[in-house]
């Protein structure tokens, strides 16, 4: 299935010994941003995936170990962050200034 799964929530059922999970939340003005578009770009800045944040502002990707960039788009503004992911859980926050 290629559909966007529900964002956020428990990690139950996800094998963190094999999956490289990048997850976190988008914030603006001290509150989570629901419905923001978060895209995952690879080391060459190429688009890899995009999800929409949950009501709690959460997003989650299943990637591979390496360098990644996260970029969020929302009516209130945009944010960007670079991170280096490893197998297991990689957590981060995107703050819209």
């Amino acid at each position, binding site marked *: *299935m*290629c*559909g*966007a*799964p*529900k964002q956020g929530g428990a990690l139950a059922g*996800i094998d963190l010994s*094999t*999956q*490289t999970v990048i997850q976190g939340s988008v914030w603006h003005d001290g509150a989570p941003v629901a*419905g923001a*578009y978060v*895209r*995952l770009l*690879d080391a*060459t800045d*190429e*688009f*890899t*995936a*995009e*999800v*929409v944040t949950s009501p709690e502002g959460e997003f*989650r*990707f*299943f*990637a*591979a170990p390496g360098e990644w960039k996260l970029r969020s*788009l*929302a*009516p209130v503004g945009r944010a960007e962050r670079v991170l280096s992911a490893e197998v297991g859980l990689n957590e981060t926050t995107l703050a819209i200034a």
Partner: protein
Amino acid sequence: MSRSDVLVSADWAQEHLGDAGLVFVEVDEDTSAYDKGHLEGAVKLDWKTDLQDPLRRDFVDKEQFEQLLSAKGISNDDTVVLYGGNNNWFAAYAYWYFKLYGHDAVKLVDGGRKKWELDSRPLSDAEVTRPATQYTAKEPDTSIRAFRDEVVAAIDTKNLVDVRSPDEFAGKLVAPAHLPQEGAQRPGHIPSAVNVPWSKAANEDGTFKSDEELAALYADAGLDDGKATIAYCRIGERSSHTWFVLHELLGHADVKNYDGSWTEYGSLVGVPIAKGA
């Protein structure tokens, strides 16, 4: 066929909501998106439960398509205006179905649901019901649908365009990165395929790039204008987006979407596979 025949702007869509003879249709993998709010008067199609056969791996046949559109209140004379999430992946996929079953008056809203939301345009949560119709579909037009044998025969012969992300093309990922990395298929790509990720055809807000930018994109990737083209991805929805660009926007004459895509090809016994960039 030109861009204005197949693509409408969000402004145009907003001005024409509710017009007689126009039916707005949202197509999503995630039906909760529609339920949270949709374009005023738009009906919903669920790509999985409405557009796929419930038993066999195939999409709905002619009779099932007729039943679906009749129940949704879409008639043969209506102009269907499609939009959806995921940068219009699934709306483009539905667009391809409508063309396959001979519905000519169909358009996409440029940017789909994403641009609509980023522009903070109005959404409605009112329930939409339309009176049922007696929709009649044509026989499927297989000149726009590729099957596995012709894909294998197309290696080194036709243009094969793999529209997945570079990491999926290289065999590093087996699914888009918003999904768990699992599946029985072997990773990689079809030999002689060029990798032009669907995302290169779209701007960040989900709208399509200009015709000039699109023409340059595929020319630079080495697509031979004199050859037929087959586009594929993982399950055929991202490649519908590229099929729309090549066939509908750029007017290439012979372009097929291989909806079996990598989940079929990567599971076939004995076919050649290439890995790496």
